[in-house]
């Protein structure tokens, strides 16, 4: 059975969302999962409890997919509840 995409083709993105200004920093690691995971742990260690940065490692075929599936990290600073619910 041919898979549409092999596990090695998945792309990795380290996301840092700052709730204070609604900015999302995205670091792309392309298909290098090991480098992405090392950077994930490093970013977590460096993140002080007071900074409130929300750091997570997300992976998919593209960043576009992640913006769909994990939209809460891309919502910006001001949100409209109605829009969040009904797009």
């Amino acid at each position, binding site marked *: 059975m041919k898979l549409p*995409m092999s596990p090695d083709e998945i792309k990795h993105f380290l996301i840092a969302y700052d709730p204070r200004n609604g900015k999302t920093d995205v670091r792309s690691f392309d298909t290098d999962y090991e480098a992405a*995971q090392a950077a994930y*742990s490093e970013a977590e260690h460096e993140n002080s*409890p*007071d900074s409130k940065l929300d750091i997570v490692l997300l992976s998919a075929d593209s960043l576009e997919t992640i913006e769909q599936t994990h939209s*809460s990290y891309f919502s910006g*600073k001001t949100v409209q509840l109605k829009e*969040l*619910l009904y797009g």
Partner: protein
Amino acid sequence: MSGVRVPPPASSAASVAAVIHSKSEVDRAGRLYANQLRGSGQAHSKEELEAAVKVIEWWRHEHAKPLSRVASNLRHYAAAEGRPWVAQRLKKFPTIVDKLTREPKMKLSRMADVGGVRALLSDQDAAYRVASRLRRNWTIIRFRDYVAEPKADGYRALHLISRNRGRLIEIQLRTPLQDNWANMAEILSRLGAPDLKYGGGPAYLREYLHTSSEIQILEEQGLPIPPSLEERYGDLLRQADNFVDEASDEPR
């Protein structure tokens, strides 16, 4: 999440991969770190804590390959239902230890969502079709139908726990409406009500979430929304909007 300090790293995720830890070592490390956070049990040295962090990180790293395999397969199954929106995540260190702190009996080696994959499907039937294909073809050790029985807060989705080469991976199947709701709940808790998911936070926010979920269910089923529910919803939405405005203005 705030309030959780992770000691500085001694090594990268890549270099810890060569070591192997037993499940009881993994459980001990998780418990030691969680107890330290709760301030219960004996005090531990910096070295002990750093060693525990390394074991927890190693355990998360162990999930990366199984997670990618499960996600690739899921992408294949979801592709039969249209454009496959599939993404995977390795659980954040702070939320791993928060969960252990919240649930004192939880063993890290049994935590089923250290590796998690989420698929958005076009509608509920598509989500059920994918779930039954997975259950036929994969080792699914648990299936939770939060559509038939939503969680107390109003959360809806299908959750499956798959075992892949000895590691548990959580699969979430959501419709776009269910996903919108869940992301909204996430944003609200981040805006200043972190306990919302666990029955905490302002009562009107919990009620707002629950009511908006109820309305979505009626909409999905093409049923009319009773005027009393509509009115209640409007009221709660105004309060929730105020909460968002105030939280967004404050420097956080």
